[in-house]
């Protein structure tokens, strides 16, 4: 089991997804995983850098991996799937176009620092069994549906994690936290991603579809593992209601918050109050 990983929060975790950052740190502390900060990390370049050439994003992300390596760490964990993709792409571009990549990066790079998501860390390194044993306050009689989004498992050859069509890692973790997990067909349907600002109508429609299905399967809440998904589903839920003349009222929690709560970590520490949709009902026993 990994005991010590480099931690790359990503820019959202300093802002809109600050509660994700809080809950990841709190949960890892409780589970005994040491998160080593990457000194002076920079933005991975995310999707925008790829509009010019994957090389730019790869170099931006690569700098963080190189710093982690210089700290003697060989695994970088990030909560954000978009950052995860950028970090993995850096390794990929290094393999495919090493000389160009090194030219742009301008620092030593070994290509052997593995990037994993917090979900992967929880599922593969700690495992649902261990978490289940540690649970103190299980979500009894609650239905929580997992929403994985696009990038955590796709494309399979790149992600090397879980199943691309029917991922189950979050299902198992939610079950470990004591909640029921109904079959959720839209686990990996896209929520609209970064188009929220530029193409809001598209995002309303896609997000609406996901919320609609979650409601149809009787969910009390959604679990997510991505800042952007969370933002689209939670923060924009009100916008969706207005745009689609709906009245969704589904809390959307980070998987780390759900497990954190079940483990008995203080809700404030986990940043639950920072969520847009009220979560009170979820914590009332039925």
């Amino acid at each position: 089991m990994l005991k010590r990983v480099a931690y790359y929060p990503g820019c959202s975790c300093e802002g809109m997804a600050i509660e994700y950052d809080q809950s990841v740190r709190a949960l890892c502390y409780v589970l005994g995983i040491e998160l080593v900060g990457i000194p002076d990390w920079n933005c991975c370049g995310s999707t925008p850098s790829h509009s010019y050439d994957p090389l730019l994003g790869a170099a931006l992300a690569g700098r963080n991996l190189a710093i982690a390596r210089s700290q003697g760490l060989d695994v970088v964990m990030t909560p954000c799937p978009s950052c995860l993709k950028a970090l993995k792409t850096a390794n990929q571009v290094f393999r495919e176009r090493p000389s160009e990549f090194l030219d742009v990066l301008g620092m030593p790079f070994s290509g052997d620092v593995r990037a994993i998501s917090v979900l992967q860390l929880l599922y593969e390194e700690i495992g649902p069994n261990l978490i289940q044993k540690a649970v103190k306050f299980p979500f009894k009689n609650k239905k929580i549906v997992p929403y994985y989004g696009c990038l955590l498992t796709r494309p399979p050859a790149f992600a090397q994690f879980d199943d691309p069509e029917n991922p189950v890692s979050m299902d198992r973790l939610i079950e470990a936290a004591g909640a029921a997990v109904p079959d959720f067909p839209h686990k990996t349907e896209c929520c609209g991603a970064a188009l929220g600002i530029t193409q809001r109508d598209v995002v309303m429609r896609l997000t609406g579809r996901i919320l609609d299905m979650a409601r149809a399967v009787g969910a009390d809440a959604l679990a997510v593992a991505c800042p952007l998904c969370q933002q689209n589903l939670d923060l924009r839920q009100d916008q969706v209601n207005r745009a689609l003349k709906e009245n969704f009222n589904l809390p959307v929690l980070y998987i780390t918050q759900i497990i954190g709560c079940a483990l008995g970590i203080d809700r404030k520490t986990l940043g639950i109050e920072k969520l847009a949709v009220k979560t009170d009902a979820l914590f009332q026993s039925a």
Partner: protein
Amino acid sequence: MRIGVFICQCGTNIAGTVDTRAVAKKAMEFPDVVFAVDYMYTCSEPGQKEIQDAISSHRLQGVVVAACSPRMHEPTFRRAVKKAGINPYMFEQANIREHCSWIGTDREANTRKAIDMVRMSVEKLRRNQALFSTQVAVNKRVLVIGGGVAGIQAALDCSDGGLEVVMVEREPSIGGKMAKLDKTFPTIDCSSCILGPKMVDVAQKENIRLYAYSEVEAISGYIGNFKVDIRKKATYVDWNACTGCGECTQKCPSKKAFDHFNEGLGATTAINIPFPQAIPKKARIDSDYCRYLTGGKCRVCEKICPVKAIRFDMKDEIVTEEVGAIIVASGYDLFDARVYGEYGGGRYPDVISAMQYERILSASGPYGGHIRRPSDGREPKEIVFISCVGSRDISVDRPYCSGICCMYIAKQAIMTRDHIPDSNCYVSYMDIRAPGKGYDEFIRRAQEEYGVKYIRGRVGRIYPRGDRLVVQGADTLLGVQVEIEADLVVLATGVECSAGARPLAEKLRISYDQHGFYMESHPKLRPVETNTAGVFLAGVCQGPKDIPASVGQGSAAASKVQALFSRDTIETDPQVAHVNENMCIGCGKCEQVCPFGAIRMKTLRDGSRKSEVLETVCQGCGLCNATCPNKAIQLRHSTDDQILAEINTLFD
């Protein structure tokens, strides 16, 4: 030696990129060559005559033809020179077409290469020896592996021709996939009505010996004289005694056994007869489910059986049969659609395979011929068929077209509309492949008369909504996404090689392609033969095909066997190993490595050990030759001196 060299132009096939005239001219300079010429089509009748004339006018003792691949025409030319009085092994063929003219356009380089190739052939020929075949008796019995429609046809044809047939079938009953079908395209006639009588024939013919629930364990020998070990798997029922009355199946308390015949829809009893028309109609105990065999208590069937046929202590048994030829009709498997996660990966009970649907349609099937959903037994109204599931899909390593799915989907859609007139059928397809007689008309009927909606586009995803399934696809003709709320989704699963195809091929020493389908000897001209003499192919084991084609190939294989058996003896290939006793030191390494047991050691009168080749058993692989330290054993027609001469002449 007086050698004649003939350079074939093969029209422009060779002459287009090789200066055949120059090759012939150069060949005249090679040692022993007394005649050389190029010719338009050497393999043609006049071309062969040209060779024969030259043999007599130039008193040739050996002939080199530079033309196409010897795998193509070596037999032709050997026959031709033999007619002119030369031993057929005093002939060599240089492959200047497939290995030269067709693979490069640089005329000069090709010509230089062709000259080298002719030179190598001449040098080899100079060291050839006249070889003579011997005759061995043919055992006129034939083994048919597989009792599907192709195997049945082959067996019946052989039997009609008066041959003794041994049939081995892996399952408890013959009939294969066809026995499971409800109807057949494009005539919609009843599958079991046309297959049933043939199955009964197999059981009744006195010259067919059927081993059902048996598998081929090992094969040795060679054309005319194969020895086959057959594993009779334990059925726990003495089939000589069992009358197939079915009493036991009524009383068996273990009623949850997997129903293979019904593709897992519904269940059967631990002791069962797979289906009413089964041949042989005998009961078998499924040891995975039998209470006595798994838990040590029960033995109800034993008490009930009126003829006391139950044998709980039965073990697998090996029997040996001797045959002269083998027809392989080992069939196929259907693709397991569970690898498609986007279609539910087997999680949704109302997403079924086409073969399951076939059983649902069948009057002898699990629902008595009424179309129902496996999940809740409701009659479906909206039915979606998805084609190319495990066909034409590189991502699941099935790039080939299965060839039958388009047709059986149309059949099933028509049947559905017949059974449930107020239903709607949709077919998601990429292309429609219907090249058979009456096939395309059949597809048109589905659309025109039966109103089946064909939607061109592959389905992206299936997910449940309520108790229905949402099929999310595309209509590429319109350029839009399509959503259909379906009650039942039928996946047209493709054809793949059967799970045991590769190990069986290794026992038979035949080759298979990258997908496990058996390789025929020539894709066009020898579609039934394999490269192992005496082994023939029939049915889908060779490649996807429909019933008419399988039956046709079954008959073709049978006629090949009949032709083989029309003679009492066959000629052996004289290209076998031979021991020079003066050199042999009796170390026995050749005997140790021979894959065929074709070498044995003998002791001469002076007490020295020598090895000896059994020429009819030797297959001519040359492993002994390569192993022998002082090359006392030589493979005829591929001797060390011949190979060394070919090497040396390149670098003189």
